[in-house]
C-alpha cells in the first residue's frame, strides 16, 4: 500500500509537470498545435487519476478520512479543481486555463506533503461538522481556483484586445465573454460552500478559543475573501458591474483565499479546522 501511494504520488507529480509544460508550450506557440492541444488535457487527466489514487491509498494508510485532514484537504481541493476543469474544458472551450490549473495542482499535491498534523484541540470538534467544513472549503477552493484562472485570463485577453496586440489567426485564449461567464458561474457555485465554511469556521474558532496572530489573520482573511466575493456577486447583480473591475474583485478574493490556505499550511503546530 505504501508503495502504491508513493508510486501514485510521483506519477501524479510527473503527469502534472508534463501537462503544465504542454499547456505552456501550446500557449507559447504562434499557431495552434493539434497535438499539444490534445495531449495536455489527457496527461492532466492521468495526473488526476494518480492524484486520486494517492489520496485514497495514503488516507487508508494513515487511517484518516480525506475530508477530516488539512493534509488531504489541500490535496483534494487541487484534485477537485483539475476534475472540474477537465469536465468543463470542452464545453466551454477553455483549454488555455490548463496552463494555470496544472501548475496549481502540482503545487498543492507537493505542498500538502509538508503540512503539519492536526492539533489535539481539533480532536475535540464534532467530527461530522468538521468533515463538512473541510469538504465545503476544499470544494470551494477548487471552484475558486478555476474562477481565478478564468479571471486572470480575462485580464490578459482584455488587455490584448484593448491594446490591439492581436494577430490574425485567432488567439489561444478563450473569448472574453466565455471567460467572464465561467468566472461568474464558478463564483456562484462556490459561494454557498465558502459561506458554509466561514460560518462553521467561526463556530470552531469560538469553541477552540484560538487567538494567536496566525489564527487572527486567517480568520480575517477568511472574512475578507467572503466579503470580496460577495461584493463581486452583489455588484454584478445589482449594478451590472462586470468585466475588468469585477475580475479585479474576484482575483483579490482568490488571493485572500490562497493566503488563508497558506496560513493553514505554515502555522506552527498545524490544525485541520
Amino acid at each position, binding site marked *: 500500500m505504501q508503495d502504491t501511494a508513493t508510486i501514485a504520488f510521483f506519477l501524479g507529480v510527473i503527469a502534472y509537470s508534463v501537462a503544465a509544460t504542454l499547456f505552456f508550450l501550446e500557449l507559447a506557440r504562434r499557431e495552434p498545435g493539434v497535438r499539444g492541444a490534445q495531449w495536455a488535457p489527457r496527461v492532466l487527466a492521468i495526473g488526476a487519476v494518480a492524484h486520486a489514487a494517492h489520496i485514497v491509498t495514503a488516507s487508508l494508510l494513515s487511517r484518516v478520512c480525506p475530508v477530516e485532514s488539512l493534509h488531504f484537504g489541500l490535496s483534494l481541493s487541487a484534485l477537485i479543481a483539475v476534475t472540474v476543469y477537465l469536465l468543463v474544458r470542452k464545453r466551454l472551450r477553455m483549454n488555455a486555463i490548463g496552463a494555470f490549473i496544472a501548475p496549481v495542482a502540482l503545487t498543492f499535491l507537493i505542498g500538502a506533503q509538508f503540512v503539519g498534523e492536526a492539533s489535539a484541540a481539533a480532536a475535540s470538534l464534532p467530527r461530522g461538522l468538521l468533515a463538512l467544513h473541510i469538504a465545503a472549503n476544499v470544494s470551494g477552493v477548487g471552484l475558486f481556483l478555476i474562477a481565478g484562472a478564468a479571471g486572470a485570463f480575462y485580464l490578459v485577453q482584455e488587455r490584448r484586445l484593448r491594446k490591439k496586440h492581436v494577430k*490574425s489567426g485567432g488567439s489561444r485564449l478563450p473569448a472574453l465573454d466565455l471567460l467572464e461567464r465561467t468566472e461568474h458561474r464558478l463564483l456562484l457555485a462556490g459561494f454557498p460552500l465558502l459561506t458554509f465554511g466561514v460560518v462553521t469556521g467561526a463556530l470552531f474558532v469560538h469553541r477552540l478559543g484560538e487567538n494567536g496572530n496566525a489564527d487572527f489573520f486567517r480568520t480575517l482573511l477568511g472574512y475578507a475573501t467572503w466579503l470580496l466575493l460577495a461584493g463581486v456577486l452583489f455588484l454584478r447583480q445589482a449594478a451590472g458591474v462586470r468585466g475588468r473591475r469585477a475580475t479585479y474583485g474576484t482575483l483579490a478574493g482568490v488571493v485572500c483565499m490562497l493566503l488563508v490556505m497558506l496560513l493553514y499550511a505554515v502555522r506552527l503546530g498545524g490544525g485541520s479546522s
Partner: protein
Amino acid sequence: MIVVVGLSHRTAPIAVRERLVLGSDALPGFLRQLTERPEVGEALLISTCNRVELVAAGRAGADALERVAQACREALAAHGREIEPHLYAYTGGAAVRHLFRVAASLDSLVVGEPQILGQVKEAYDVARKLGTVGSILHRTLPRVIRAAKRVRTETAIGSGQVSVPSVAVELTRQIFGELSGRAVLLVGSGEMAEAVARLLKGAGTQLSVIGRTPERVAELADSVGGKSLAWADLKSALGVADVIVSSTSAPGFVIDHEMVASGRKARRGKNRFFIDLAVPRDIEPSIERLDGEFLYNIDDLSQVVAEALSSRSREADAAEAIVAREAEGYDRWADAEQATPTIVALRARLSAALEEELSRSLRGKLKHLGPDDRAALERMVESALNRMLHQPTVRLRQAALDRNGDVLPLDQLSLALSELFALASEPNAEEGEDPADSEPRAVAVRR
C-alpha cells in the same frame, strides 16, 4: 515526365478564364478525347475559379513532351480564339515544380488558401475514375498532394485571415465567442461594412441596418437579410447591439462618447464591439476608454491584415523550400525511372529463358520430382535470377541518377544491354512498372 498547360489569374482575365470552365458533363468527354490522341497517354484537368490547367503525360517518354504540350494547347484553345494567347506551358522539371507550387497554394491569388489542395485531389480522383491517368500521373499526383500537405502542416501558410472583413469577424469572435444570436447593428452602407455584416449574418447573428436614407437602408437590409431601422432609433439600437459596424460618409462622429456612455447602464456591463470602417471616422475614439467597450477602426484592422500578410510571406519562403525539396526528390525518382524500361526488359528476357529451360527439364530428366522438390527448384531459380539482376539494376539506376559523368551514361548501358540480350520493347516498361518497387515475381513454370 509531365506537362502542364493552362491559364490562370496571372495570365488571363476572368472573361477569358470563364470560357474554359468545363462542367462535370463535358469533362469526361474532353479528357477521353485528349487521351485518345496518339501523343497523349494520361491527362487530368485542374479547374478552379483562378486557373484551368491540363496536367498530362506522353505515351513515349520524355522526347514527346513538346508534342504532348502542343496537343494540350490545341485541346484548350479549341474553346475559344481568345484563349490561345493566354496559355502557358511547362514541360519536364518546370512542370513538376509548377504543379507542386500550385497544390501548395503558392501560386494562388491568396497565397495559403486551403481550397486548392482539395481541388487538385478532386481533379485526380475524377481522372482516376475516368481512367485517364496512368502510371506517371499515378506516381506524380500522390507526391504532389503529399508535398502540399507537408506545406500546410509544417508551415503556418494557411493560418490567419487576410481581409479587413474577416479580421473584423475574427476579433468579434475573440470578444464574444459564439456569435449565434448576437445583435449586430450596421450603420451606413459602405461596401466593406456590408461585407462584414454578411460574414456576421453568416455566423448566425441578428442583423439590423440603420442609415439616413430609408430607401437605401431597406434595400441593404433586404440584401443582407437584416431588419431596417429609422435613423432616429440610433441611440436605442446602440443599447441593444453587441456589435456595431459603422461606415457612413458623415464628416463628423456619428456615434459619440456621450451616446455610448449614457447607454451603458441599460446594458448592465455587457461587452460591446465597435467596428469603425469609415474615413473620416464615425465613432469617437475616446469610447474605448470605457470598460467593456472595444473599438477598432480601419487602421487597426488594416494593421492586423498587414501583419498577417507579412507573416504569410515569411511562411511562403519556408513553403517554397519544402516544395523545392519535394520537387528535387521527384526529379531523382523520375531520373531513376528512366532505367526502368531496360531493367524490366532484361528481367523479362532472363525470366523467360529460365522459365523455358526449367519447364523443359521438369518435363524431361527431372519429371520424377515431387511437388515439394519442384517448388524448391522454382524458388532457387527465382533467387538466382534476382541475384543476377541485382548488380545490373544498381548500375543502371546509378547511371540514371548520375549527373557528373562518374559512370557510363544510361543510354550507352541500355543500348549495350539491348544489343547483348536482344531486348525487345516491353509493355510493362512503357507503363513504368518498377521492379525495385514490386514484390519479386516467381518464375512461372509450365508443368
